[in-house]
């Protein structure tokens, strides 16, 4: 099984990147995780031609080829960073690779609360009709005080957090297998591929 882990920030130093790197290594015998960055994507500006810039296309291809996606998001001002939102807007506006894709959300932040509000927003965003990702329910992996969470080798030091993450990943792998069984139906997919907000307004949907 192959997953793409998306680092939800364009910052150079990110504990969310560290978290994905840790998952990549720690669960290497269970699953292959490729890490994808959004740093080089341009800012979304709603171009009229709806063509994905090369970097967006590359990210989109990577997502399409994967069995599932992990988003690791920081929290900026009680929501997801603009950079991650911009990446998602590109995907929703051009290639729409997330439709029916199993998604797991994790988040690391320096404060105590983890990234609960950003994760809740991300969940709502991923449920929008032109994204329609299958976000795994009931799992909210929050890593608070993330600057202190890793040792020099990049390992998570808190045993409870390691165990929780292992449980969540196992559950997610099962979720990916399950969704593969129940979503071979491409009708829904096509419908959403063609979804357009202006159509809604015209009363056609």
């Amino acid at each position, binding site marked *: 099984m192959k997953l793409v882990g998306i680092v939800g920030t364009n910052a150079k130093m990110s504990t969310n990147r560290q978290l994905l790197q840790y998952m990549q290594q720690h669960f290497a015998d269970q699953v292959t995780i490729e890490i994808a960055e959004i740093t080089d994507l341009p800012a979304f500006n709603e171009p009229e031609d709806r063509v994905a810039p090369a970097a967006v296309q590359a990210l989109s291809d990577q997502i399409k080829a994967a069995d599932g996606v992990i988003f690791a998001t920081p929290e900026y001002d009680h*929501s997801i960073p603009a950079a991650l939102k911009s990446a998602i807007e590109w995907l929703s506006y051009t290639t729409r690779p997330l439709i029916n894709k199993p998604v797991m959300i994790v988040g690391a932040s320096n404060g105590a609360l983890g990234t609960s509000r950003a994760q809740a927003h991300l969940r709502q965003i991923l449920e929008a009709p032109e994204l329609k990702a299958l976000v795994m329910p009931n799992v909210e992996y929050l890593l608070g005080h993330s600057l202190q969470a890793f040792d020099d080798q990049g390992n998570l030091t808190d045993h409870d957090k390691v165990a929780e993450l292992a449980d969540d990943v196992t559950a997610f792998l099962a979720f990916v297998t399950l969704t593969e069984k129940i979503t071979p139906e491409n009708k829904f997919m096509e419908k959403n591929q063609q979804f357009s907000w202006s159509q809604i307004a015209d009363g056609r949907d």
Partner: protein
Amino acid sequence: MKLVGIVGTNAKKSYNRELLEFIQRHFSDQAELEILELTDVPLFNENDDQSQSPVIQAFNEKITAADGVIIATPEHNHSVPSALKSIIEWLSFKLHPLDGKPVMIVGASYSVQGSSRAQLHLRQILDAPGVNASVMPGSEFLLGRAQTAFDDQGNLKESGTVAFLESCFAKFMKFTDLVNAMNVPDAVSYQPGTYAVTAVGHNGKLPMSVTLSKDRIEDIQIDTSTETKGIAEVAFKRIPKAIIDGQTLAVDAVSGASMTSHGVIDGVAEAVKAAGANPDDLKKRQAQMTKAVQNITDITTDVVVVGAGGAGLTAAAKVLQQGRNVLVVEKFPAVGGNTVRAGGPMNAADPEWQHQFEAIPGEKHTLTEITQIDEATIAPEYLADFRVLKTQINAYLKENKDQRGYLFDSTLLHRIQTYLGGKRTDLQGHQIYGQYDLVKVLTDHALESVKWLENIGVDFDKSQVTMPVGAIWRRGHKPMGDQGFAFIKALQKFVTDQGGRILTETPVQSLTTTAGKVDGLIAQGPDHTKVIVHAKAVILASGGFAANTKMLQQYNTYWTAIDDDIKTTNSPAMTGDGIRLGTSVGADLVGMGFSQMMPVSDPDTGELFSGLQVPPQNFVMVNQAGKRFVNEYGSRDELTQAAIDNGSLFYLIADDEIKKTAYNTTQAKLDAQVAAGTLYRADTLSDLAKQLQMDPAVLTKTIENYNSYVDAGEDPEFHKNAFDLKVQVAPFYATPRKPATHHTMGGLKIDTGAHVLNADGQVIDGLYAAGEVAGGIHAGNRLGGNSLADIFTFGRIAATNALQDELTVTPLG
């Protein structure tokens, strides 16, 4: 009432924009609404801080000045568009203009529910602590099916919708008044008295006494003696005045002296607290906003100089000496630029003077090495000079064969060392060295510059001849008094005494031309004034770009890498403005890929004069393992590369005797640094090693070896060229160091008359450049002490030619 409206998308076509425009028209009798667009707002990135960029500052200033803000948000993927999120992140990062600001949210979207989900998210976002806006509750104005909502004139069609908008708006007017009334800080009351407090400035303690009456800050007295002359004065003058005038602690730090500024602010805050009031109340108090009206100042003069550093003030002085008018336009509040930071010694060969001093061990060896250089490696244009120099050296060596002898020097040695010192090959294999005619002018006229400066009022300390780091030879003329500031103090006094005008805080933004001739400039003055200058000539003297890491990285062809977080020894003003101004009128650039690092900089601040900074013959450099790793007398880039190869961080080891040769420090400063943990001191080398987490045996052995080399006058390990003192008298010191960006050799292409040239090698009429902004002289590596020689020499030349060229074109009238 004054409001700001933000169109929540960067899309070309937006119903939210139409909605705001409708609000603007419809309520124009109640409020003045200025609409701001997100089009030019860059995506937020915490590693690329753009808080000070004009775009973000426009948002910051307009929101700060407004009574309230209306945000019109579309809904993208059930949330706010990234473009809107981005500006909010910028406005919650370093700046917080939305803090406490009344905000109304409206939204237009294609679907029936309007933008309900996006509005909900926006509320939560605006409530985050970094933003902390006061969002009006309820009154959710959602405009669904937006593309059918407006008529051809852009007016909302349905009267019901308009009526609802009117009720929302009326409520917002009341809400705004209410919130703004709430934001007026409570009256503060103090326990009257004079409070003695000690704040922390740039160089250490800043004792202050603050006098408070029952309801006012009356007086602020500061002991300014420890702060840096030439840098801190502006802060001492301005910050206390701003605090007292505005009775507020919300005053802006003075650029270039922000640590001193914050020191003063913190000190007053401490006094306020001691007097039983809450300093936070005073921090919230807005100083009286100056009206943002655009005033235009129009000035006509003979010559206008960009930048009041060493080169600029020299050019100005020279113009005045010839009886003409000059205006100097300076970006920062204080004059002096990097020149006030300079260590002081200025290179000029003055053999008569230098002959009074004894040669020191190693110097003859250096001279012998020069005579042994293969002539095939010398560029043809330098060859004739090189041969004459060899004769001079051989005669000197013969004369002093059996005696220590005096310190040798000649104009030619200075010239050839400048050439050899600047000869470098970059990563792509391109070789560069100083352009012969420019180097000749520099070395021929450097001594004349020393004499000229004496005339202006600079006193030099003739009793010693010094060699700054990386200078290769002892030919430094050191001014009396405060290092680089000594030059600036004298020049500034001369310029103002002779009727020259200096405008500070006025960054030049563009040059003006008429029929291809540069004839003036446009600058941004303080308090939103625009300054337009008409002149017969413009002299660019705005310094280099070593404080602009991005620009360094963009042009770099020499270093394998320049870290994003590299520190600099420079003033933050050194952002390459002059290079941009020059190229905007077609100037050619030369040698831009070569920058210089200062190997011996403070690892935390990039500064040069923390710790024990001594003449290089007394440097003993050890790596983190306690071993020497380089010839300490080497050039700056050799030292830098060696440091990088050894993990960047290294230490300068000194003993109590070496300490006495340090520039620019006092025992009190050293004690403070030891206490702060930025300088290490111990009674034995073993203890010093332990503090540095080195093996004591290794460091002890390193020093033992070094001392034996000093005795022998020869260093078999790294071939250090000159020695002076041994490391033997307790206490011992270790000063941590790291390379930082220091100098940019590349710049505008000039000829020997300081005319700026275009890509075809032709003079750009009316434009001159002098100092670090110009390139071609120092090439791959500038020798220590050569820059001061350069700026005072080419500053004079630029002025002379600016006037002379002018006279040949238009007769004196």
